[in-house]
């Protein structure tokens, strides 16, 4: 345990370094010295100050919440489905959120524009992901075969994307563009006020997870053992679903769908710390998720250029090979 404490402090330090690096990089060159000045003292250059404090800093903080939140929801889902390949994106949870958001953005022409607030996007996205999660879970309770569950998750995803296609066919170019940009994923388009709301969602998800932490560990032994250790299976399942829905749903709502972070980070964490014990796994998972998201964001900024890549493309380009590599390794994936 002592060793792990040391590692946590160490990786937190790395996280701070990465955050500062992330803030220092961007399309506008700002010397590192100035960045520190702006962050910790006062700076004369108001433009730079604005870029750092109102654009890059909230973006970095959002990246941390997105990465850690998705990693945590992936971990929860792998535990819930007892399946190492579960993750918010793979099981169609993100598509559920997409459908919710599509209904709000694209459907606003039918439903009236009063729905078009950020709050309603967050609510719709969370509801959408919770609903798909429940549906997948309902099917999963009938079918024990893990491969079948994953395929069903994919089917749910294509079903929801079909709905989205229908909606986009009937919607205006303006709202369609808004939706498409949302689906690219964007970490930078978030105000301080939204960061606060996002933080609250993230915190609730984390709190619910901490409340389940003992149960999550018992469930590593399987449902029968967990029950024999006093776990209320139904209640735990409910809490985990709500936590996953809030984490994955709010993330997707604020920054759009982000692929593979939820699936890959828990496995990378297990690879590094060599344990499935959630007391250790959860803090490392949060930190690693945040780190990877910061790196992906830095890459998507294409340092030195004015272009920004869609963040979803960056995480996919990195995540997919990682997952393939994990599967090709001789050792079986363990949850």
């Amino acid at each position: 345990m002592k060793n792990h404490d040391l590692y946590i402090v160490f990786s937190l330090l790395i996280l701070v370094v990465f955050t500062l690096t992330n803030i220092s990089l961007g399309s506008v060159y700002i010397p590192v010295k100035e960045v520190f000045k702006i962050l910790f003292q006062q700076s004369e250059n108001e433009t730079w100050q604005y870029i750092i404090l109102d654009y890059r800093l909230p973006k970095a903080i959002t990246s941390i919440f997105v990465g850690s939140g998705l990693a945590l929801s992936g971990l929860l889902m792998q535990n819930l489905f007892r399946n190492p390949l579960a993750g918010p994106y793979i099981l169609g949870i993100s598509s559920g959120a997409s459908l919710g958001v599509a209904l709000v953005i694209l459907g606003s022409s039918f439903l009236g524009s009063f729905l078009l607030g950020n709050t309603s996007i967050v609510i719709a996205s969370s509801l959408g992901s919770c609903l798909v999660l429940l549906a997948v879970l309902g099917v999963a309770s009938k079918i024990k075969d893990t491969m079948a569950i994953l395929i069903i998750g994919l089917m749910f995803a294509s079903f929801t994307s079909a709905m989205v296609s229908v909606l986009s066919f009937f919607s205006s170019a303006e709202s369609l563009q808004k939706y498409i940009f949302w689906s690219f994923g964007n970490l930078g388009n978030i105000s301080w006020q939204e960061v606060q709301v996002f933080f609250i969602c993230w915190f609730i998800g984390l709190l619910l997870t901490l409340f389940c932490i003992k149960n999550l560990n018992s469930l590593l032994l399987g449902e029968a053992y967990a029950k024999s250790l006093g776990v209320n299976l139904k209640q735990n399942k409910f809490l985990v679903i709500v936590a996953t829905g809030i984490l994955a749903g709010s993330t997707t709502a604020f920054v759009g769908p982000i692929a593979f972070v939820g699936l890959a980070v828990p496995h990378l964490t297990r690879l590094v710390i060599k344990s499935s014990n959630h007391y250790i796994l959860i803090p490392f998972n949060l930190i690693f998720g945040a780190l990877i998201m910061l790196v992906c964001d830095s890459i998507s900024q294409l340092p030195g250029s004015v272009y920004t890549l869609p963040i979803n493309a960056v995480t996919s380009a990195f995540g997919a090979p990682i997952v393939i590599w994990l599967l090709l390794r001789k050792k079986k994936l363990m949850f």
Partner: protein
Amino acid sequence: METKKHILTTKNLSIGYEKKQLAQDVCLQLETGKLIAVIGKNGEGKSTFLKTIMREISALSGKIYLESKNLDDYDVKDLATQMAIVLTKTSFSKNLSVFEFIAFARQPYTNWIGKLTPTDQQKIEEAISLLEIEDIVQKHLFELSDGQLQKTQLARAVAQDTPIILLDEPTSHLDIYHKAFVFKLLKKLTSKFNKTIVFATHEIELALQICDQILLVDHQKIEAFSPENLIASHQLETLFPKNFVVFDPVEKRFKIQPE
């Protein structure tokens, strides 16, 4: 003379599944501190009986009493301090250290975050030394042999510190030394620590040598015998098809019938 105390009682219990009833009108009284084997052919309902007692599946009809209180009335948390289980299927995550795995047994007693108190630590260490697995506590489960894994599972059940332990075929996949080790340990747990142990097994010969009581699951019935009475009842001789295997009541063992 000491008074006999019944820890587990069944009244007109029927077990099985919706489509297939496996045993009916089971009336048993299991004494505290005894080693009790459940024997029978494959598919006759040994595991189902255990699963019913551990509330994994519900009884078709009838009642089970644990310490004179209806088993169904136990809260899942209270039951966790009464009964520990060891299952055959090892579908648990192997990415845990032996210590972590055993420590999870203390969850019914720990606080909401699962912090181990000195008492918990002591119980875990007692279980580890009882099973003689001090040398592997830091290893991961996926590194263990079948014998070590079974010892670890037993240590977990012991660490849960419950008056009853239920085991489903605790000696399958084990060599004869480990089988004897497990049987002797179970015996020790009953005689020295006054635990009641009920386990399903195919090792009828070993069970006859060491158990206090044997539950025979056969022909939709579950009946309790002492080992001597079971042999005297001649029921073992008709348990399996006679042209394949016969029971020798004198030598107390099964023999393959030559062609």
